[in-house]
């Protein structure tokens, strides 16, 4: 578990390091766009650390990349289909949960939803810890 945290932190720092050049006064990137960049980096590092084995991590990667490109086209049966997330009727009071987990609306199996949820929560909490550690380190750095 410690290795996973370090990997997630590494991903996040690597992505964050791309921000500095974007903050140059010559580039017209707004503050809100910069914040969005950090936000996307946060979710991206969660997804990269988790790997492609999870529905939520794949959905996050798709969501992040969707902002730049057209919807992913997949060749199915030699015809091109634009793949959209499939809407399914909600089961057993888990609608809210499915909305909150990335890709949750494509998870049909209750057991799988439970697995994905606890996995997602773990990575989310780790991300929060990483970011809090960064914030406090930067804050300390300023005073000494």
């Amino acid at each position, binding site marked *: 578990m410690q290795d996973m945290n*370090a990997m997630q*932190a*590494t991903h996040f*720092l690597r992505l*964050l*390091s791309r*921000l*500095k050049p974007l*903050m140059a006064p010559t580039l017209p990137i707004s*503050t809100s766009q*910069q*914040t969005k960049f*950090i*936000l996307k980096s*946060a*979710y991206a590092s969660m997804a990269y650390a988790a790997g492609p084995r999870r529905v939520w991590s794949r959905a996050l990667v798709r969501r992040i990349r969707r902002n730049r490109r057209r919807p992913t086209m997949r060749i*199915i049966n030699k015809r091109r289909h634009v793949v959209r997330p499939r809407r399914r009727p909600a*089961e*057993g*009071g*888990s609608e*809210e*949960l499915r909305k*909150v*987990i990335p890709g949750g609306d494509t998870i*049909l*199996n*209750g*057991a*799988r*939803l*439970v697995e994905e*949820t*606890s996995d*997602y*929560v*773990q990575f*989310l*909490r780790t*991300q*929060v810890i*990483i*970011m*809090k*550690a*960064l*914030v406090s*380190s*930067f*804050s300390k*750095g*300023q005073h000494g």
Partner: protein
Amino acid sequence: MSSRRRQSTNNGSRITDEQISDLLFRLRELLPEVHGRSGRRVSASKVLQETCTHIMSLHREVDDLSERLLELLATTETSSAQAAIIRSLLL
């Protein structure tokens, strides 16, 4: 695998009580300890609700921390500070 195959089994589409207690067990290690929860039978919807609330508050935290990080990044002097931070996070 054909994308048109319907989910024929329905043994998984409802969340069963056993799955709820499984989720509860796993999340109990992660969620803040809730008063009066331990040992008592909790309704499925309650657990789902608590989990949703927790996830949403985590999302908000990530939002807030992103803003704070931006403020700090904009004002902090770079290389030595960053090197120290990287070191402390990876050790």
